[in-house]
């Protein structure tokens, strides 16, 4: 088992390195560089950047150097725990991301929590009472949730919020709580702003999880061991919950690998629409403005999280499901 974990970990390190190269290259792929996009941005805002200024900026940002030199410079910085300076924000990348990382985690965890709390019981119910009225309703609602793009839902809710309730639109805090230090009042303000984003983000996931849970459980419920348990006279709740549900949970363990990066990146489009101060809009902006160090760091972070997540789910699966055997132990 230890050897297995060790081997996986080694592979993970290599994967992370490959991701760092790839993320750097991908960001360089679009035409131009940060200075071009800066100029374009200035131009679209009604000002002009002269040749001289553009030249000066390129020298300052070291953009004239070959790409591999820029990459090694970045790697050296990372070695020192410094992810570089964001060109657009002109602050260390770690600070820029740090501000938003926790907000992102809060929003995504809330969404995830909502998803699981809703999806698991409904999924179990739908399977046990297959083809009942409740099953049909759950399925219908689920499919609607799955089919409506969540950014559209966000737009509709924004508009309804504005016309019906004149609600504070977008963001995670009211203006007065925007930059004050943490307090119980500020936390309450955050909680008040959470339901809409959590609902929008969670809805599609909920539908999916309901379907997965239902299908898995239906498979299990027809197996002989369930019949045996039932014929032994065990109460129905024990019959269902003790074994089939546990087995049906397997796919959830294996999707943790995707869940981890999802916590950071899953909310990109919804965050943009709702104006949430999360990592998503930051990544989009950084990519559009070709802010290499910032975009590179976020992409790298997502990559690392996927790798770690996969590692965790592999280990978790081995642990949860005794049927999975390691070949060489």
């Amino acid at each position, binding site marked *: 088992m230890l050897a297995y974990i060790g081997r996986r970990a080694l592979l993970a390190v290599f994967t992370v390195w490959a991701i760092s190269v790839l993320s750097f290259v991908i960001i360089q792929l679009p035409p131009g560089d940060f200075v071009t996009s800066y100029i374009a941005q200035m131009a679209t805002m009604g000002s002009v950047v002269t040749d001289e*200024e553009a030249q000066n900026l390129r020298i300052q940002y070291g953009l004239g150097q070959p790409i591999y030199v820029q990459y090694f410079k970045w790697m050296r910085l990372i070695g020192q725990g410094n992810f570089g300076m964001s060109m657009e924000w002109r602050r260390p990348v770690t600070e820029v991301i740090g501000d938003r990382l926790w907000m992102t985690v809060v929003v995504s965890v809330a969404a995830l929590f909502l998803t699981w709390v809703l999806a698991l019981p409904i999924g179990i119910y739908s399977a046990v009472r297959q083809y009942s009225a409740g099953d049909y309703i759950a399925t219908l609602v689920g499919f609607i949730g799955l089919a409506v793009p969540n*950014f559209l839902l966000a737009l509709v809710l924004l508009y309804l919020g504005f016309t019906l309730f004149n609600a504070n639109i977008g963001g995670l805090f009211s203006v007065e709580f925007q930059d004050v230090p943490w307090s119980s009042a500020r936390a309450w303000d955050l909680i008040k702003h959470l339901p809409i984003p959590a609902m929008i983000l969670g809805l599609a996931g909920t539908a999916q999880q309901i379907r997965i849970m239902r299908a898995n459980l239906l498979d299990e419920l027809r197996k002989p061991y369930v019949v045996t348990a039932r014929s032994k006279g065990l109460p129905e709740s024990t019959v269902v919950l003790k074994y089939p549900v546990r087995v049906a949970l397997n796919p959830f363990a294996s999707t943790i690998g995707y869940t981890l990066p999802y916590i950071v990146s899953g909310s990109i489009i919804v965050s943009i629409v709702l104006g949430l101060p999360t990592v998503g809009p930051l990544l989009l902006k950084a990519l559009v403005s070709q802010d290499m160090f910032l975009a590179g760091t976020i992409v790298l972070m997502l990559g690392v999280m996927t790798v770690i997540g996969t590692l965790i789910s592999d280990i978790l699966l081995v642990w949860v499901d005794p049927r999975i055997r390691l070949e060489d132990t």
Partner: protein
Amino acid sequence: MSDHWRTPRTRTLRSRLTIALVVGALSTAVAAGALAQIGKSTLIGKLEGPEVVTDPAKQPKTFNEAPQLAAQVKAGKLPPVAERVGQDPLVIKPLHEIGKYGGTWRRGFTGPADFWNGYRCCSGPDHLLFWDYTGDKITPNIAKGYEVQDGGKTLVLHLRRGMKWSDGKPFTADDFVFWFEDIYQNKDLVPTPSAAMAINGKQGVVEKVDTYTVKFKFPEPYYMFPDMLAGSTDVAGQAWRGAFGLGGYAPAHYLKQFHPKYAGQAEVDKKFKEAKFDSWVRMFLYKNDWSLNPELPVLSPWKTVTPANTPTWTLERNPYSVFVDTAGNQLPYIDRVVLTLAENLEVINLRALAGEYDFQARHLDIAKVPVFLENQQKGGYKLYLDPGDYGGDMIIKFNLSYEADPEIAKWMNTADFRRALSLGIDRDQINETFWLGTGTPGSVVPADTNKYNPGPEYRKLWATLDIKKANEMLDKAGLAKKDAEGYRLRTDGKGRLRIEIMTLGGQFVQFTQISEMIREHWKKIGIDLIVQEVDRSLALQRTAANEQQLGAWNNDGSEHLFTFPTHVFPFDTIAVVATSGPLYAKWFQSAGTQGKEPPARMKELMAKFRRAYGVPEKERIQLGKEVWKITAEEVYSIGIIGMGSASMGVRVVKTNMGNIPSRQYNSPDGKTPTISRPVTFFYKK
């Protein structure tokens, strides 16, 4: 058949999100009705604004200050107000009345790249000279006065006696000398000298005469220089250009600690490493960044307290502000300005609708005017339109130095072809659909009131709808042959004459949608227009590579012809998302040593333009008019809708704010709303 059929479209994610979803849902439902009732006249008011008082006899003798500053004076933390504003404060006569102190001005912004936002509202401006509210006349500003001497070769600036930086240290001629010798002439900080500091390619110098007098000297007459100080150029103050090592002056007493010449290389190296900068240069420029460094001593009426690269950009009153009103009250009236970060423009528009901003024009969408009108009561605000003085909220530029397809290049260089295309556009339909009838259809020339306007007859020159004439001109030019669908054929036998127009999405003006409408118009004159919306980086790359045929953009800024010529003729070699000829621009910038020689008429225009910088104003105005005449006659760009409000001219102001102009001069050079002097805005209750 033509080989360049449609190339795949690239769109930014934002434009995809923005498209029509909210716009469509919100505005179309109420559009027609609301506007028809209110009409253009009530939305566009009279141009008005505060004035700078220059008569020493009218200077206030005693001074007042905001209550919190008075408390600090009482506590002994600040010197008295009369000492802080100095002997020659900058006196501004408010538009309507003397205001009251207090309040927070709430605005929305989109992040550090939206630097213009805070700069336009709150920098004062800190230019040495500035414009009066008509955007036409130069007035004293940070400098008390100026004289042009030596046949235009020298500009003498008189500073205000006793004026101070925001940390209480004196602002003197030494700050100019420090800027010039230790920043501007330092090759690490400013590797390439600025064109604004040069006439005919020859650099000028800065000299101290005495504590309160500075000279800018040039080897040749440079009568334009005062305009350069007033406009948005490299010598236009610390807020605008400090972060680039430019601006004309800098706080010497503060910045010396970050400069190797004064602090020593070893000390500066230690500092930048500790602060995690890549180099001392990056650190130095950051320290001189008005929007990012809260410690920086400034001259602006408000100063940054939480920087623009955080979720909220906050500015607070500068206790040493040199601005006062006619009653001697130190300005600004408003205590703080808070710009909150919005991740997208729809959120800004919705917040403005909900009355969450006090005064906002930036990022508001003209297509939403009906919705803004409908929610005036509920949101507690009033909607104003501020049309620009420039002739094109949208123009179409011909790339005159295009070479990739010789047939297209030939036609784009035929004046009658360009004129015919211009005659084939139904501007009224575009005006009604996209400007809700509030714009002015016509050529590219600026408003009739602009000093460089060549005459009212140029507004309609080649800029009316005349399909018959357009068809005749095209037939006569040699494009009489048509295919089965009625489109004109190329003369080289390679099929239909197809022309591409490049547009950008997600802008103040819906360039793509308008271009699609023009595509329909041009069907009637047998021209097949292909509309390509591209990402802005791709647009830049194509224009730089001379691959663009037509480009859609606006000509905002061109009302100040000589400080903002980019959209008038091929002037810049870079930095345009729509070009009128990169090779000609190169030829112009390199004084004929590079690029491609333009045709005679263009050369005539360029010569007039260049000459204008070195001649007195009267002669310059004449030359400016001639530049516009040639531009309109030759139709280098097609003007579509001008004097429109699409670009930052849709203004939402809370009804409890005072000294608000019913119409303000909308221009990048005027840094609107700064031209209306926001230091005089106040809250009535």
